[in-house]
Every structure is written in structure tokens, then in C-alpha cells.
């Protein structure tokens, strides 16, 4: 009885200590994420325009309107295509780079640093640099060497502007994902390869049967990060294409931003942002769930 109470008291003290240590982080999380998130959801049910009084309660109207907004779904589809294409390309290229740069190539470290460097630039700067490349440099090269598909700027037609966005995204993040894959590759024990070689496995078999399954944890993380970054992209979109030509490359974040602040329908934009949140989280959760299961099998 006595011992039980004392233990309980000690448990309480431990818990209190834990809570006290966790408090600053929890408090920051609550004020910066949870409260604004909850408040944001509340705003989706109003007709607030961003200034002045908080608007009146309008029920589900903002969501209904979003479902009938053709442009919203156009942007959403475009974003899904962009996410799919850039996630695949990013991870294939990042894995390729990582695989090539963990085999003892001379100058490996310099190359790794080089591929990682774009990730250190801000999206706006990068967007403007690439805008210059697409508008001037490539066009100049096209004219000098008489290459027809380079003579017109990639940014002036909807399809090529879409690919320009993909190219820049891949260039920006491939190095980052490469670092994650390198981490995964370095963790594979060397004796596995020796054993495989003794058993007569060629390079391809080794790659498919040993390397790929064993880097699955890195793959799961990389795909998750690629999904998240390409879903939420705004800065590159703004600086590179600005949504143009004629609003054909307005990805979903830009569309939502413009809804809220250019068309000045704040609550409507907030409702669309919430739909975006739901779509993105479902996709990310499914990806992590599937990825984790494969990890266990490996």
C-alpha cells in the first residue's frame, strides 16, 4: 500500500518532468500549427474576405463552390500530374546518382557536393535563374545550332512550361534525395555482395535482389519528401512561370493563393486549401503505409 503510493508519486513526478520538458515544444506546436489549423477550418465555414469583421456563417457553401470550380480541379489535376512525374524522375535520378557515387569514383565527394548544391538556393532565386536560362540561354543555343525545339522559349507554351517546371524541380531536389539514398546504400553490409558474387549473381541481379530491397527505408523517405515538396510547391512556380502562359501552369498552391488574395475570397481559398490538405495527406499516408509494409518484407 505504502510502496504503491510512493511509486505512484514517483511516476507522477516523472510524468511531470516529462511534461515540463515537452511543454515548450508542445506550446509552440499548438500555437503555430494546431490553433491556426483549427481556426482555419472554422474560417472555411464563413464568408470572410480577409479584412475587417469576421464574416458570417455560411455552412458548407465554400466547399460546394470549390467542387463546382472547374479551374480548381484543372489546377488539382495538373498538380497531380506534376507530382507524379517529378516524384518518379526525382527518385530515379537521385538513386542513379547515389548508386554511381558510392562505387569509389574519383572525385566522388566533390560531385556529391555539386549535386547537392542547388538545394541550398531559395526557390525564388532558382526560379529567376532558370527563367533566364529558358528565355535566353536555351533560345540562343537553339538559334546558334539551329535546333528547332529550342528556338522558342519553353515558357511560352503550356506543355513545355509544365516540363520546365518539372526540370527545375528535379534539378533542385535530386541532390537532396541523393544524399538520403547514399545514406541507405552505405548501410548495406559489404559481405552480402561477396556472398552474392560467390553464388554467381551478376551486377543486375545484385542491384535488383540486394540493393533495391535494402534501401527501401531510404526510398520511403525520399518518395515521401518528394511528394510533400512537389505538392506544396509555390516559389518555383511563381518565379519561373508565374502561372503562365495564360494561367496554364497555375499549380494548386498558386491557385489557392490567388483565390484568397487576388480574387479576395479568403474563406473560399481556405476551403480549397483544406481540400488540398486532405488529398495530399491521403496520398502521403497511403505511400508511407505501403512503403513500410514492403520494408518489413525485405
Amino acid at each position, binding site marked *: 500500500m505504502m510502496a504503491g503510493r510512493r511509486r505512484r508519486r514517483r511516476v507522477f513526478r516523472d510524468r511531470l518532468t516529462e511534461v515540463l520538458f515537452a511543454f515548450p515544444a508542445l506550446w509552440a506546436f499548438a500555437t503555430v500549427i494546431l490553433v491556426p489549423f483549427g481556426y482555419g477550418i472554422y474560417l472555411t465555414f464563413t464568408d470572410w474576405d480577409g*479584412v475587417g469583421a469576421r464574416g458570417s456563417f455560411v455552412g458548407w457553401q465554400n466547399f460546394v463552390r470549390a467542387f463546382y470550380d472547374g479551374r480548381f480541379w484543372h489546377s488539382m489535376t495538373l498538380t497531380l500530374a506534376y507530382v507524379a512525374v517529378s516524384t518518379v524522375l526525382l527518385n530515379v535520378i537521385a538513386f542513379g546518382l547515389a548508386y554511381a557515387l558510392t562505387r569509389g569514383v574519383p572525385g566522388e565527394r566533390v560531385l556529391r557536393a555539386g549535386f547537392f548544391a542547388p538545394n541550398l538556393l531559395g526557390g525564388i532565386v532558382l526560379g529567376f535563374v532558370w527563367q533566364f536560362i529558358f*528565355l535566353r540561354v536555351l533560345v540562343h543555343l537553339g538559334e546558334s545550332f539551329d535546333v528547332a525545339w529550342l528556338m*522558342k522559349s519553353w515558357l511560352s507554351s503550356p506543355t513545355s512550361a509544365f516540363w520546365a517546371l518539372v526540370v527545375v524541380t528535379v534539378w533542385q531536389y535530386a541532390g537532396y534525395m541523393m544524399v538520403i539514398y547514399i545514406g541507405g546504400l552505405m548501410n548495406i553490409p559489404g559481405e552480402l555482395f561477396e556472398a552474392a558474387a560467390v553464388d554467381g549473381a551478376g551486377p543486375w541481379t545484385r542491384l535488383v535482389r540486394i540493393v533495391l530491397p535494402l534501401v527501401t527505408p531510404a526510398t520511403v523517405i525520399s518518395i515521401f519528401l518528394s511528394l510533400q515538396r512537389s505538392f506544396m510547391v509555390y516559389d518555383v512556380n511563381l518565379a519561373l512561370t508565374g502561372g503562365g502562359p495564360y494561367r496554364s501552369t497555375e499549380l494548386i498552391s498558386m491557385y489557392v493563393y490567388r483565390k484568397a488574395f487576388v480574387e*479576395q475570397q479568403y474563406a473560399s481559398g481556405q476551403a480549397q486549401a483544406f481540400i488540398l490538405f486532405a488529398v495530399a495527406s491521403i496520398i502521403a499516408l497511403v505511400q508511407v503505409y505501403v512503403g513500410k509494409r514492403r520494408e518489413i518484407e525485405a
Partner: protein
Amino acid sequence: MRKRARVWIWVFALVVTLSACSSGGSGNTPGNTAGEDAAQKGGASDAPAQAIKITLLNSKGEIQELFETAAQTFHEAHPDIELSVVPAAIGQSPYEKLTSMINAGNAPTIAMLDTSDVLKFADQALDLRNEQWVNDALPWTLDAAKTGDGRLIGFPFAVEGYGLMYNRAVIEKALGASWDPAALATRADLAALFEKLKAKGQAPILLSPMDWSLGAHFLPISYAVQGKTHEDVGAFLAALKKGEVDLASNAGFNGLMDTFELLKQYNVNQDDPLSGTYDEGVAAIGDGQAAFWFMGNWAWQQIKDFATDDGFGFVPVFISDNPEDYGNREITVGATKYLIVDRAQSTPEEQEAARAFLNWLVYDEAGQNMLVKEMGIIPAFSNIEQKPDDPLARSVLSYMNEGHTLQFMTTLPADHWNVLGAEMQKMLAGKLDRKGLAQAIEAYWREQAK
């Protein structure tokens, strides 16, 4: 125990957060006029020991540095006031920046807004109708800042104009003779000049593809030429909203579109018309790659880095071949930026300081000098004798003095430039014909009626 502690933490976090929100919010309530009254009683006579710090949100990025200099000059004249200038970021609308600053409880004392956004902040803005400068302002510049209940909440900061900008030296060099912009009176004259320039190997015009330029500046000329008074133009837009206008048979619209076709035909970038940027245009007109550019006088701040002389000015965007038609002698001129003073979150002293700054701009010689000479702003006040040095502003002024101005459509719906600018880009790229554009415009305006 564990559960209870957790609940306790959450309650605490929420209380702290909510109280933080509400203390920010209480100053935010509309109708808080106590500050205003106190400001008038307080007066500037008893200067406080510590300098009053006020902020100004600047949404004219091209004069950010000059504005900082102006703030410094102002501080030297008024040591008790420190003004800091906050810029709105590239690509960020002043409306958004101000909205987020207000909601963060951090409203700037003075904010520079686009004309169409001024009245949206009526609840936050201080009534300025009793200020001295109200009597010296050009009367039409105050219209956009008057609220329904008779308050005046905006200080007209800048008058701006746009049209077809020319580089005279380049034209004269190509023609091998002197050239008088006043000799152009119709679209046919312009076409003849373009043809001559082209024959001499000089690219005639750059038509930049930015949606704001096409959607907020070019297309609205077709609205402005519908009538000589604000009421006539307003009636035209009202009819457009009701779906009563057939643009396909409208003379003003068709006239402007014929000119658009002409500019397209002689465009430097006609092979790849959507590839241009604003900066490219600045360089092209400045160093003579193009003889004309469709833009406004605000561009001088950048053009002057390229220009070798000041032979720049505007000719109208001609809309027909009859020199007498309204729009063939006029360029578009309007008040495009207003300053509002925050009353909801600023102390009476801060409001007083902000009003002192506005007065300094209008009545103090140093202030006038900063505004007109340094920033190259065309002032909206008749008492200011100084004239801008830059040739584009002087050109706009000469049209103003002759009364040859078209209304600058500054109070169009907020997404007009974005939605219809995109349609104009399609037209520029040849993806949309005139009929399609007319339908898109009609559909857009019908949507506004809802």
C-alpha cells in the same frame, strides 16, 4: 495522473494562445474612433522624449530605396519621428501583405494600396477629410478614396499614365530625319511609321506579354473610350454586367483590337510573343532594340539605367483612323496608389506622426523634392510647383495639362487583370480569336453580377 497533467497542459496552452489572440483582436474592432479624437486633441506641440516609431508599407518596389532616403530626410526635419519603410515582396499583392499585417496585430501606420483596394480597408482607415491637403488635391483624385458614409480615407500618392512609349532618338536615327510625335494622329499614321521603321531595319514595337499589362492596362482602354465621363464608362460596365453589350459589334472594342492586331504584326517578339518579361522591355526600349513599347511612366526608374538621352514620351494607343475620335488624342491617366493611415492599431501619437508625414510630402519643400524630383512621382496636388525631371512623367503631365486624358480603370474587380489578362495572352499567342475574346470578356462581367 498522466491524463490529467496532459489535459492541464492543453488548457494552459489554449488559454495563453486565446488571450494572445484576443488582445490583438480587441484593437481591431471597427468603429474604434477613440484614438482619432485623442489624436486631434493631443497635437504635436509637446514632443515626447522618445522618438515615435511609425512604419509605412510601400508597394511600389521600384522606389523602395528612394523611399528609405525620404524617410531619412523626413527624420532629419522631424527628429521626434522615426519612419521605417517596409516593402511588399515581389509578386505579393499589397492587399495580401496589409491583410496579414493587420491580422497579426502589426498594422503599418501608413499603407500604400492600389486604388481598387482602398475602400476595402474602410474600417481600419483614419478619416482624413479635414486635412489641409484635401483642398489642394486635384478633385478627381479623391473620388476613389471616399467612403459611403462621407469619410475620406486615402491620400492620393501617385498619378500615373500609360500609352505607347517611344524612344525618339532611335526613331530619328532610323528615319534619318527629325520626328515629331504630334504628327501621329491615327492608327494609319502609326502603321505607316511602323512600316518605315521596319524597312530601315529598326524593330518597331515591343508588346510585352505580362498579364497585368494586357489585362489591367491594354484591355481597359476599350472600356475607357466608351464615354468621356466617369458616369458614361460606369454605365457601360453596368450594361456589360447585365449582359446587354455586344462587344463583337462595339466600335471601341473593335477599334482597340484592330490596333492590337497591328501591334502584334510589328511586334519584336512576334515569333514567340509570350516569351517576354518586364525587364526585357525596359532594356529593349532603353537601348533602342524597339522604337515603341506599351507601358507607363513608372518604368522610367529602370529605363534611365539604359537610356542615353531623355527623348522619351507617349503617344496614344490609337483606336481608329479618325483623328477626332475620343482616344486618339488621349493617353490613360489616373491616381494609382493611395496611402491610408491606420486608426485601429496605432496610437494617437502614431497617427499624428503619420499625418505629419503626409503634410511634409505636400507642403515641405524637401518633401516635395523627394516626391517629385527623386521618386519621379507625378503629384496629385496643385500646390506643388515642382515638375518631375523624367521625360515620361513630363509627357504624362503635358497630356494632363491639355485635358487629353482617358480614365485609368483602377477600380475594376480584383481578379480582372488575372482572368482577362490570360485571355489577352491567348489572343497574343494566336490561340484565341477576337470573337472568343469578346465572349470571354462578356462571360467574365456577367459572372461579376452574381
